[in-house]
Structures are given as C-alpha cells and as structure tokens.
C-alpha cells in the first residue's frame, strides 16, 4: 500500500447558517456583518479521515449525525466551512437515489443525459449503456418514459449507471433502502468486486448495520458531526448497535427462574425434527407467554428459543438476524450487552428470550440464528443453531433501517416452563 490514499480529509467542518427570515441576511450584508441574524448549525465539527485505495469505508450513525453532509463535502456538492480534503481520481456520488432523472424522457435518454451531469463524454456512456441496462434489469422498460418507473426501478437505474462509469471513488448514500432484495444482493457483489478486484474506493453510508459490516474494510461511526469511533467493522458496528440498544434495554437478569410458559410446537416457527437436534423450538412472542405467528413491523416483540446446551455453563448467548439477501440486519451478544455469563447444568434445556425492537424494520422474511458460547473471549465450546425463517408483517413506513436487540433473558427449563 505504497500508493497515496484515495481520500484524505483533515478537520473538515461544515456550519450552516440558519436565518429565520431572508431579510436577516440582507441586514447582515447591509451592516457588513456587524449585526447577526442567523443561528449557526454545526453539521460537521472537524472530521479527519483517510481511505486507502481499494477499500470500502462504511459510515454509520443516527439520523442527523453528519453522514450525508460528509459525503456531500467529499464529492464536491457542498463546500466546507473549514478544513481541507483531497479525493484522487474520478469521483461519483450517489446521493438520494433515483432522483435527478427527467420524468418525461425514457430511461435510455436519461442515461445519455446523465453523461453531461457527470461531466463525461457521451460516447463513453454509450459504450457502457447495454451493461447498465442489463444490470438494472430494465431491458423492457428502457424506452418508456421515466415517470412510468417505480421507485425501485429508478434506484436500480441510477446505481447501475454510476457503478458502470468506472469511478475511481464511488460514494453511496442510503442507496439500497428501495429496491428488492435480489438487486441489493447483486449490487453488494458488484461493490465487493469493484473494491476487491478493481482497486476502486468506495464510501458507503447506510443505516443498515448488516450492509456496512459486510461491505466495509473499515467503519466510521459518526455522532453529532464528529467521529465517535473508527476501526474494524465488526467492532465499530457492534459498539454502535449496542449504544443504540442500551438506551432502551430492559433490566433483566441472565436467568429468570420462573419464566413464562413456552409456546407449543404449533405456535413456533421452528421445531426440532429429531430428538438429536439441539435447537428444540423457536417462536415469536408479542410478550412473554403470548406466541404469535408473525412479528409486527416496527413494534416490539420477543424472539424465543428452546435449546439444549452443548456443555456446562456458565455461557454467553448471541443472536443474529439476516434478511433475505443474507445481509446481517441485527446482532446481539449477552456479553457485549454487559450481562454476566449464565450458569446452567451440562446439557440443560435453556429457554432464551430476546426482546427485539426492530426500529424501522420493514415487513419481510428474516432468518434467526441463536448461539451459545463459553464465558471466555474465545468461542470454544460454543454452538449455534439456525432457526430458519420467520415473518415480519406490516406496511413499510420507514425507509431507513437499523435494528435494536435488547438484553436476552435466559433460564433453564423447569417443568415445561
């Protein structure tokens, strides 16, 4: 890695001036700034980072933390209030997907026009047009006006367009909140290829912890316009998810002796096939003891499991949720959540209850994986069990997605409870 980094930013700052009314600005001009009529809003307060070539940098953080502002500064859309940055090579920034197209023109004409917007030679775009259309899976629609496109189709077209223009640096902001799972998967693979094989650099801003963790080599966690943590994806994303979850966690001991009754086999989404299978049952509860066939979108529910421990306690427990594309949408770990390892007898049947609050999770199919491991930091003596698919039902109302897993409650099974 002797090459110069693709992106270097030093102490980037962005302060917006917010005027209550436009005349305030006029007054400031007239008095040459002696009168102040604005309130400053610091969207970015000194961000420094460096991205080597051929890496994907993930940027994660709550709404309004400055992720998008950072991207707009690096791509030259906004000018910084302070600090310097240098981005090497051709930069494309995909900000707010699927907009900026002309509604009256066909998809094909919009591709032609985009060359201008990106400052490219029209011939360059034309040569790659077939690839773009094929990747976007829009062969049938490409000669229809853009206004007939669904938002997913628009998103597909704009991502394909940018990805095939061979940028040296590609910046993507919340690109995959629309669009179906299979296209998302395809796009992730394309990004992985661009970064891994073609030595391109990607900055990926998303609320989706799973996507960030999968695509990035390094992750920046932003909070209130500053970098809170930067480093290894698993570490930073884990810390971020914990921080979001901890604020809402319910106080609960690692083992609850008098747990609620566990649902019957017909109320579970997973049932063990033979006597040998350690994961006996997995189910959804709206609250402990009240099983449900489907989980409600955007609401609190509990994922429960009954499993036979592979060894003696004490143990830590973990849970991972994937969506249909295989992207990790949520994960939790009783150790990371600050729980003590739970004591239990060797081979005991354990009841785990994970209160889950999927903030902004849309309806769909999700896959749960329950895990157990020893108290040490090593994972020896552990096991994990795939509980298969469960459904989340409801209507999609929030486009950005992050997920919060809460502290699990685990206890030994006593008298069928």
């Amino acid at each position, binding site marked *: 890695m002797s090459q110069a980094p693709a992106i270097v930013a030093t102490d980037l700052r962005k302060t917006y001036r917010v005027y209550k009314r436009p005349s305030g*600005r006029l007054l400031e001009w007239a008095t040459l700034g002696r009168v102040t009529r604005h309130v400053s809003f610091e969207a970015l307060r000194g961000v420094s980072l460096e991205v080597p070539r051929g890496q994907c940098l993930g940027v994660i953080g709550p709404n309004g933390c400055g992720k998008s502002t950072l991207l*707009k500064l690096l791509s030259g*859309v906004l000018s910084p209030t302070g600090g310097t940055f240098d981005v090497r090579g051709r930069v494309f920034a995909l900000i*707010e997907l699927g907009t900026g197209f002309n509604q009256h023109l066909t998809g094909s004409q919009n591709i032609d026009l985009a060359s201008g917007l990106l400052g490219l030679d029209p011939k360059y775009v034309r040569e790659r047009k077939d690839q773009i259309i094929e990747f976007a899976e829009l062969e049938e629609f490409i000669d229809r006006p853009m206004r007939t496109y669904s938002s997913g189709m628009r998103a597909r077209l704009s991502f394909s367009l940018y990805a095939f223009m061979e940028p040296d640096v590609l910046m993507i902001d919340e690109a995959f909140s629309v669009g179906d799972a299979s296209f998302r998967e395809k796009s992730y693979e394309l990004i992985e290829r661009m970064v891994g094989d073609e030595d391109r650099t990607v900055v990926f801003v998303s609320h989706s912890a799973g996507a960030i963790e999968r695509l990035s080599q390094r992750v920046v966690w932003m909070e209130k316009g500053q970098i809170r943590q930067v480093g290894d994806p698993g570490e930073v994303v884990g810390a971020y998810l914990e921080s979001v979850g901890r604020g809402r966690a319910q106080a609960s001991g690692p083992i609850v002796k008098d747990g609620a009754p566990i649902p019957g086999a017909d109320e579970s989404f997973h049932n063990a096939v033979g006597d040998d299978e350690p994961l006996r049952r997995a189910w959804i509860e709206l609250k402990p003891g009240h099983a449900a066939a489907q989980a409600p979108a955007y609401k609190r529910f509990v994922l429960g499991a009954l499993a036979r421990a592979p060894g003696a306690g004490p143990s830590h427990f973990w849970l991972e949720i994937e969506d249909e594309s295989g992207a990790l949408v949520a994960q939790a770990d009783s150790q990371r959540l600050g729980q003590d390892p739970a004591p239990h007898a060797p081979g005991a049947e354990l009841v785990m209850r994970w209160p889950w609050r999927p903030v902004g999770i849309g309806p769909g199919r999700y896959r749960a994986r329950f895990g157990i491991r020893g108290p040490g930091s090593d994972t020896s003596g552990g096991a994990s069990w795939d509980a298969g698919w469960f459904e989340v039902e409801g209507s999609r109302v929030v486009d950005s997605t992050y997920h919060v897993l809460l502290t699990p409650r685990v206890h030994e099974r006593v008298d069928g409870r």
Partner: protein
Amino acid sequence: MTGALLKYRGFIWRRALLDLRLKYAAADLGVLWNVLHPILLVLIYTFVFSFILRRGRADGDVPYWLFLCSGLLPWVAFTECVTQGARGFQRAAPYLRRLAVPEEVFIAERALSATIGLGISFVVLLIVALFYGLTPTWHWALLPVALLLLQGLGFGIGLTLGTLCVFFRDIPHALPLVLRVGMWTAPVLYPASLIPERIRPYTLAHPVTPSMNLIRALFLEGVMPAWWLWLLCLGWVVVSVAIGSFVLKALRSEIRDVL
C-alpha cells in the same frame, strides 16, 4: 466560470435543446410549436396593424407590424433569459443538491434555449419580411451578433438574479413588474425617434436600448450602426456578466446550503 461553461458545453447544448423539446412535450405537434409560435405571433401583429388598426408607418417607410416584431421577438427572448435565469437555480435544485455540476451551467442552459428560440423566431420574421418585399442587405449578416449581445446581457442579468433568488424569494414576484417597466422605457414597442430629442441620449443608459437600436438599424434601415453603439452593447454584456460572476462567486458556497 468560462472554464466550467466550456467543460459542460455539450451538456448545456443538449439540455437547451431538450428544454425546447419538453416545453411542448405533451402537445401533439411537439417541437413544431417552437416554430409555430413565432409564426402565429408575427401573423397576428401583421393582421392587426395592417388591416384593423391601420397603423401604417412607424419610422421611415417600414410598416409598423414589421417594426414591432423586430423589437418584440428579441425582447420576449431577453425576458425569457432573465426570468428563466432567475428561477434557474431553484429549478435545478434536484441536481445542485446532489451533483457537483457548477452552478452557472444551469443558467447558461436556460439562456441558450431562449437564444435558440430567438434564432428560430427571427428566421421566421426574416422570411415573412422577404415575402412582404423587404430588400435584404448585407447588414442582415450582422444581426446574429446584435441579437447575441442582447442575449448576453440577458444571461448576465439572469445569472445575477438566479443567485439572489436563492436567498430572496421575493425577486421572482417583483420581476414581471420590473420587466414591464423595462419594456416601456426602452424603444421596444415604439421607435426611438418618438422620444423627445433632448432626453434621447439619456435613454441609452437603459441597458436594452442600444441593442434595440442596433437590431432596428441593421434589419430595417440597412445602415451600419455607429461603432460606439456596438461598444455600448458589448459594455453592458461585460458589466452584467461581471456582476453576475461576482455575485455567484461571493455566494456560491452557500447556494447549495440553502436550496
């Protein structure tokens, strides 16, 4: 600024042509309307002033309708330049918010599309004038220069207003009124010769007056305008574009924050 306009010249051209196409996108005749519009306008004035008002000669032996059209068509294109320029950044907000395209490109695109429209309508006017029996002179060859100078002024003003409109949303509302005053204070609908002699030199302070005088002299009178009149027109273009560039430069970093 010139650099950005040069780099994006292809884009500006395509967007300008697109403007003309999409202006009548929903209509069956589509692009044809760009030609039909000036033809109908010229025909209406011809009819009204030749047969109904019988307003014969405006200046010398030129019929009034011809005189009127030769001033009104450029004026319409000029106001298009100014009003579209003023709204230019707001209309381009979806692009400006997420693409690093230089701002002035979007004003240039509007100015160019108005200028192409003017080119079309003026060609129509020339053809009608030939049919009427006006003898063409070599001075007609200089008409594009005169028209471009007027549009250059329109671009400069549009650039200035476009930037200011981002911050002061009152401007688009005041603009039609100001333009109306501008039209009546310049010799657009009436010949400059109607203005009392003693105040006539002062009317040259109106930015549009020199261009109007140029266009009329070349087109209708077949005389070469004085060199200082050309220089005056060019001066207005330089001043307006300089002001526009200065205002844009001063406020550029804030435009996208506010949009």
